[in-house]
């Protein structure tokens, strides 16, 4: 492998890892606070992509130059699309929590896990029923981004799209870090993670914190969905399954409940997958990538930043 090829793949892996990291954060936060794997998370991501599709189509019709009522520059439209999609997707997450998980809060853990799987299937099939099996093409939010001259660095094509994706992902992760460590709500989430029997007795509202946790995780999934759809603009109702499962692997690899762990493990997973396909025949990519992860987990069964006796939410 030449140096150019190596660095090109580092750039590729950063983009691919961003999606895993953003989605893995949702799994890890929910587990950290509620000790629950939200298996509907991959499908919340998929619903986010569809929400993004409609938000983007609507905003382009309203604000794009030449057609809209008010003309906004395309970067402003992009920011609005990401924010609106995050906002709307967070409601999907809260609805899942309210309808699917809250009634089962004191039921066995397995029941809640199965509920998540079922909600996922309900999402997939309702999207299929509403929009048909026809693939949808995500609209181009930044026209000319792909055809503009791309920044290159010694033969490595970095591309504006990759800079945008990795940049937005990092900004969102820093915001999350700030929220959890510096705000009252973040503190309440961390407190709940300690003991969700005793902390509500201190006047912290359990249901509201649970809803908030789901809202934050889903908003990140919504942002990931918009970025993902910009890079891979073909939407289908099953697009969340594989990505969701792999991000779940990243959440475990990072250590349950660890925000830093989920983010780093997401990027690590991206690197392992890309380099497995580069070094070995690409046919064996997932076989090799996930064998490596299995080996890591054998030596660190609680994940990279996991702790032995607890999975509470931490930075």
């Amino acid at each position, binding site marked *: 492998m030449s140096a150019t090829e190596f660095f090109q793949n580092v750039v590729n892996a950063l983009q691919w890892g961003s999606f895993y990291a953003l989605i893995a954060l949702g799994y890890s936060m929910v587990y950290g606070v509620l000790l629950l794997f939200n298996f509907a998370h991959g499908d919340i991501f998929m619903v986010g992509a569809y929400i993004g599709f409609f938000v983007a189509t609507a905003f382009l019709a309203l604000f794009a130059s030449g057609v809209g009522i008010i003309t906004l520059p395309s970067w402003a439209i992009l920011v609005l699309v990401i924010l609106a999609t995050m906002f709307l997707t967070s409601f999907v997450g809260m609805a899942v929590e309210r309808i699917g998980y809250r009634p089962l809060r004191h039921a066995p853990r397995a029941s809640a896990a199965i509920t998540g799987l079922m909600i996922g299937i309900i999402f997939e099939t309702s999207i299929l029923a509403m929009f048909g*099996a026809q693939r949808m093409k995500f609209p181009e939010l930044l026209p000319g981004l792909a055809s503009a001259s791309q920044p290159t660095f010694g033969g490595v094509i970095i591309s504006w799209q990759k800079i945008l994706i990795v940049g937005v992902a990092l900004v969102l992760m820093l915001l999350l870090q700030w929220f959890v460590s510096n705000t009252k709500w973040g503190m309440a989430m961390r407190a709940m993670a300690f003991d969700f029997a005793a902390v509500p007795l201190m006047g912290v509202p359990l249901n509201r914190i649970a809803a908030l946790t789901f809202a934050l995780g889903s908003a990140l999934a919504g942002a990931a969905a918009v970025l993902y759809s910009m890079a891979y603009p073909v939407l289908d109702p099953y697009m969340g399954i594989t990505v969701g499962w792999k991000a779940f692997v990243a959440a475990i690899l990072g250590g349950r409940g660890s925000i830093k762990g989920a983010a780093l493990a997401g990027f690590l997973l991206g690197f392992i997958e890309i380099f497995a396909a580069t070094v070995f025949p690409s046919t064996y990519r997932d076989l090799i990538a996930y064998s490596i992860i299995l080996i890591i987990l054998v030596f660190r069964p609680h994940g990279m930043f996991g702790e032995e006796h607890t999975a509470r939410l931490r930075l």
Partner: protein
Amino acid sequence: MLKRVLVVMVLLGALALLLAACGGGGPDTIKIGINAPLTGDIPKVGEGTKYAAEMWLEDNPELEVGGKKYKVELVIEDNESKAESAAKANTKLITQDEVLVIVGPQSSKQAVPAGGVANDLKTPMISPWSTNPKTTKDRPWVFRTPFLDPFQGPVLAKFATEEFGAEKAAVLYDVASDYPKGLAEYFKKAWEEIHGPGSVVAFESFTTKDTDFSAQLTKIKNSGADVLFLPQYYNEVALIVPQARQLGWDKPILGSDSWGSAELTKLCGEPCYGSFFSTHYVAKGAKGATKEFIDRYQAKYGYVPDDVAALTWDAMNIVKKAIQDCGKITGDIEKDRQCVRDAMANIKEFEGITGKMSFNEQGDPIKCAVIVRINDQGEFEFYKQVCPEGMQ
């Protein structure tokens, strides 16, 4: 409690009504099964199949066999574009719906396993679109209407050599699907026959549902290949080609007949313009019966039919010819299936809207292929016709 019992009873009643409505048939009916991917990865293919079959039914609501008129009924089953579901759909069509003959499935991924079921249960099946040799190989009950991949692979290899002056080729294909895998291998073999061993400098793969191909494409870009061959379905092409362009691949990209969907340029957009692929027919500039079919389909459904629709139309007409050649319907389904199979095997030549076909002992047609260029408006434009030796 009473309320729940009531709800369950109402639901059961509704189900019973639904099932009763699905029945029908009878001795004066000929049932034709359609096994198509209505949902799943390639729904546009399923839609084209269904529309073409329904349009055919309009023309042939009744078939006259041996002086007696029979009502024709289509039984359409969805195979979700999955191999298991296609085999299951065939079993259901054969054992439960008792169809006389099956048209479909379309892609080789489904047609190879489903063909096995049809052959084992002794029911004639004709796949309109499957190009992998395994579909009909050693299966006397299975037929098809398109050309085969051992023909398509060399056609493309020769085209790229002559047209682009390419010497080294790269291939990216889905290793988990029969059609791309088979075609990738035929292409590689043909290419190495022309340019010598090792001239396919990158032979990269992925698995179905993958969306990121950056690692494989980076390898391909650095391999020094002159042309990239992508034997993939249109939904994957729309992901791969833009990524390749973004990673700086500015050399020609070549595709196969699975590219030929009206959806391709809608999903892929500008990055796909200027690429070439081989297919069965071209709508633009068609003449005669082919044009008639295209105009009618477009007026009825609002878009130009894909190759799948045209091939399905041909398959339906081959079925019609076989049933009429058979000469009589006895009502004994096993005997009738045997009779239709024998009649179908006896068709030596057929003039379809996708060209003239002559069938060999294996039940495979020998016919010409067309190379299409995607022009700058995103339309499929006739570029060149390539025929097997000794055929025009």
